[in-house]
C-alpha cells in the first residue's frame, strides 16, 4: 500500500492464504464425510469432495506464491457497488430479497454454498493490497469475524423461524414446544457456561498474543488522527453524525433509540410468537427489527469500519486510501435550494441590528419550506398511515400508542432518507438555523 509493491504484498500474504484455503478444504471435506456417512446423500457429498479437492489445489498455488486474485474490472465493479447510494439502497434491497427468499436460503446446502462463496471471495480479495490493509488491521480483524458470526446467527434464527412457520401451517406446535423438558441450572447450565468461559478465555489469550494491540501516537488536542474513528460499536452513531447536527445525531436520536426500544413492550399488541422463533406470526415486528438492526446498525458499522477513509471520505474496498481524494461534496441547505435556486433571490438574512423578534421572523421566513416539510412528515404522515396501510394497527392500538409507534418509525426512516438525500441531492439540512443551533 504505502510504497509497497503489489508483488511484495502478494508474497507476504500468500502463506496465510495457503493455510486459509487448506482450512476451507478440510471444512468441506468434513461436510462431505458428514453427508455421506450420516445423511447418505452421496451426490452432495461428491460435490463437496470435489470442491474440497479444488481448494487443496488453490491452497498449493497460494503456498507456491501465486494465490488467485480478482481481475481489475471486478474490483472496479465492487468499488462502484460500494458507493454510498448503491450501498445504502442496495442493503435495503438485499434485506427485502433475504426476506422474500428466506425459504430458499435457509436450506442447509444453500447456506453452506453461500458461506463458501463469501469465504472464497474473502480469500481472493485479500490478494489486493488495499483490501488486505483494511481487513488485516488489528482493529478490524474481530469485525470481520463478527460479520461472519452475524451471518451465522441470522441464518440460524431464520431457519428455525421458517421451520416453525412450516409446522404452524400443518397445525403442529413449534419445535421449541416439543423439547419442553426442564433443564437444571446446576449442572446443565453452569457446566455449559464454564466450558464456554474456558474456551473463550483460551481464544482471547491466543488472540492477544497473535494480534498486537493497535497503539497510536500520544493524543494531542491540536492533531486529530485522519481518519478518526470511534470504537467499532459506535461507528453507526458516527455515521449518523455525518448527516445530522451533533445535537440531533449525538443526543436526540440515540435517546430516541433507547426510548423506542423500551417502548416496544407497550406498543406490541401481538400475543403470538412468545418463546419460539417465527416470522409469519410477527411479520411487522420482524421486519422492523431487521431494518433497525441489520440496516441501521450493522451496515453502518461495516460502512464506517471498512469504507470510511481519510477525511471521512467513502472508499471502495479495493480503493487506495488517498488523503487527497477530491469529491464534489458541496452541500446545500434546503433554504438555499428554495431561495437561491428556485426563487432566484438572496437568502433573507436577519440584520444584526434588528430586534430579536424580527430576527426570528426573518429566520422563520428563510426556513419556512423545511419547517413545513418536517411538520408534515411528523404530524401529517401518521394519520395518513393510520388511514391507509396501518389501518388495522390503528384500530388495535388506539390513538396514543399508534402515534408513538408511527413517530418512532418515522424517526427510524429519517436516517436512510437523509443519507440518500445527502448523496443524491447534496442536501445538508432541511431546516438550518445555525443561529440557534437548530438544524434538522
Amino acid at each position, binding site marked *: 500500500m504505502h510504497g509497497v509493491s503489489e508483488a511484495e504484498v502478494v508474497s507476504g500474504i500468500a502463506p496465510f492464504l495457503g493455510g486459509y484455503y487448506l482450512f476451507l478444504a478440510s471444512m468441506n471435506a468434513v461436510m462431505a464425510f458428514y453427508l455421506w456417512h450420516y445423511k447418505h446423500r452421496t451426490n452432495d457429498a461428491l460435490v463437496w469432495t470435489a470442491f474440497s479437492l479444488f481448494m487443496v489445489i488453490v491452497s498449493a498455488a497460494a503456498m507456491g506464491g501465486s494465490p488467485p486474485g480478482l481481475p481489475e474490472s471486478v474490483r472496479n465493479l465492487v468499488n462502484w457497488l460500494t458507493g454510498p447510494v448503491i450501498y445504502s439502497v442496495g442493503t435495503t434491497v438485499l434485506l427485502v430479497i433475504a426476506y422474500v427468499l428466506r425459504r430458499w436460503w435457509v436450506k442447509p446446502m444453500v447456506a453452506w454454498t453461500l458461506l463458501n462463496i463469501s469465504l472464497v471471495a474473502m480469500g481472493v480479495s485479500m490478494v489486493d493490497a488495499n483490501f488486505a490493509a483494511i481487513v488485516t488491521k488489528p482493529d478490524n480483524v474481530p469485525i470481520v469475524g463478527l460479520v461472519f458470526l452475524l451471518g451465522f446467527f441470522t441464518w440460524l434464527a431464520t431457519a428455525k423461524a421458517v421451520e416453525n412457520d412450516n409446522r404452524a401451517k400443518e397445525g403442529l406446535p413449534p419445535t421449541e414446544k416439543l423439547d419442553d423438558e426442564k433443564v437444571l441450572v446446576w449442572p446443565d447450565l453452569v457446566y455449559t457456561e464454564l466450558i464456554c468461559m474456558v474456551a473463550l478465555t483460551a481464544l482471547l489469550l491466543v488472540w492477544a498474543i497473535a494480534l498486537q494491540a493497535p497503539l497510536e501516537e500520544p493524543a494531542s*488536542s*491540536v*492533531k*486529530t*488522527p*485522519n*481518519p*478518526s474513528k470511534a470504537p467499532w460499536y459506535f461507528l453507526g452513531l*458516527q455515521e449518523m*453524525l*455525518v*448527516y*445530522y*447536527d*451533533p445535537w440531533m*445525531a*449525538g443526543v436526540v436520536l440515540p435517546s430516541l433509540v433507547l426510548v423506542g426500544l423500551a417502548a416496544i413492550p407497550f406498543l406490541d399488541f401481538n400475543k403470538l410468537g412468545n418463546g419460539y422463533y417465527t416470522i409469519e406470526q410477527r411479520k411487522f415486528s420482524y421486519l422492523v427489527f431487521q431494518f433497525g438492526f441489520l440496516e441501521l446498525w450493522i451496515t453502518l458499522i461495516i460502512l464506517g469500519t471498512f469504507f470510511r477513509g*481519510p*477525511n*471521512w*471520505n467513502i472508499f471502495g474496498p479495493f480503493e487506495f486510501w488517498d*488523503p*487527497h481524494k*477530491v469529491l464534489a*461534496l*458541496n*452541500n446545500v441547505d434546503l433554504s438555499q435550494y428554495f431561495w437561491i435556486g428556485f426563487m432566484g433571490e438572496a437568502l433573507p*438574512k436577519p*440584520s*444584526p441590528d434588528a430586534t430579536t423578534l424580527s430576527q426570528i421572523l426573518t429566520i422563520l421566513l428563510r426556513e419556512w419550506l423545511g419547517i413545513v416539510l418536517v411538520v408534515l412528515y411528523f404530524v401529517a404522515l401518521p394519520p395518513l398511515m393510520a388511514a391507509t396501510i396501518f389501518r388495522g394497527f390503528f384500530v388495535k392500538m388506539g390513538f396514543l400508542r399508534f402515534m408513538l409507534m408511527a413517530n418512532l418509525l418515522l424517526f427510524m426512516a429519517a436516517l436512510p432518507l437523509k443519507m440518500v438525500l445527502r448523496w443524491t441531492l447534496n442536501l*445538508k*439540512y432541511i431546516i*438550518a438555523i*445555525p*443561529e440557534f*443551533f437548530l*438544524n434538522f
Partner: protein
Amino acid sequence: MAEKKKMSVAEILAAARKTDGGATSDEAAPKSSDAAEAAPAAESSPAPEKPAAKPAAKPAAKPAAKSGGGRPSVAEMLAAARAEKQGGAKPAEKPAAAKPAAAAKEAPAKKPAPAKAKEPVAAKAQAPKDTGSILAAARNPSKPGPMTKAEAARQAPAEKPKPAAKPVKSKLTVPPMPAKPDYAKPKPKAAAATTTDRRGFLTGMMLGSCLGIGFVSMSTTFGLWLLGTARFMYPNVLMEPPSQFKVGFPSNFAPGQVETKFVGQYGVWIVNYEYNGEPQIYALRTVCTHLGCTPNWLEGEQKFKCPCHGSGFYKDGINFEGPAPRPLERYAIRVADDGQLEVDKSKLFQEEIGQWSDPASFVAV
C-alpha cells in the same frame, strides 16, 4: 422464679457449708438436701417451694415426698417416686463419695423422660406447673448431691470461685512458713522494676525510638501533603498560552496564504485571503463547528477538512461540505503598536450572526 432461685442458691450455700464443715460427720445432711432438691424440683411452683423445701431439709426423704404428695400433682408423684428410688439407693451410696455420682447419672437421665411424658397431665391438673418450670427445676443447679458431668460443668464456674476463695485464705493464714517471704519479696521487686522501665521506655519512645521517628515522619509527611494540596489550588503555571500573542508582521503573510505553524501552540490559522471581496488577514480557530475535532488544511484542495465526519471549509472559513452547520470561528486580531499582528483568543466572531463585519475580527490588507 427469682425468689426460687435465691432460695435454692441459699440452700446450696447452706448445703455446701454443711458439707465443707462436716462432710464426714453428718451423712444425713446431704441426704436431706438431696431429698429437698428432688421435691421442689418436681413441684417447681414458687409458692409451695418454700414450705416444701424447709420441711424437706429437716426430715428424711420420704416425709418430704409425702408433704409434696399432699398436693394432687403428677409431677409431685414423680418426685416422690424419685425420692424413694434415691432413698433406696442412698444407704449404699452415701458412705462412698464416688457412688452418688454414679447414681446421679442415672437419676437425671430418667427424670426428663417421665416429666415430659406427663406434661399434659400436669398442665391439666395444675396450671402453674408447666413444662418449662419442671424442666427448669430439673436443671436447677442447686443440687448439692450427685449430678451429671454436664451439670457439674455448668455449675463449676459459679461454685468454684467461692470455695476457691476460702481455701486460699486458709492456706495463706494457716501455714506461715519462712519460704513465703522469699516468694513474696522478689515479686514486689520485679513489679517495681517493670514500672520504672515503662516510664523510661515511654520517654525514650517519645524522643528517639523507631516508633517515635515513624510517627514524627508520618505526621510530617501528612503535613507536607496538606501543604501540597493547598499549593495545588494555586498553580504557578499558565495552563494555556497567553490569550494574546503576536504572530509577526502583516508582510510575513503572502496573499492567499494559510499559515499553519501556530496550530500546535495556539490553535489558530492565520489566513491572508478575502471575505466578501475585501482582502484581509484573519485568525481562524482550529475547531470544527460540528463536533470539535481539529480539521486539516489541505493545500492541494485549498480547503480545511475535518477527519472525524468529513466537514469541509473554504479558505475563508465558510462551511461547504459535510455536516458542519456553521463557518469556522474567528479570533480577534489587530495590529499592535510595534506593527506586529496580535491575536486575542478571548474574543470570538461568528459569521452566521454577522460578526465578521466587526473590524476587530480582521486586519485589512
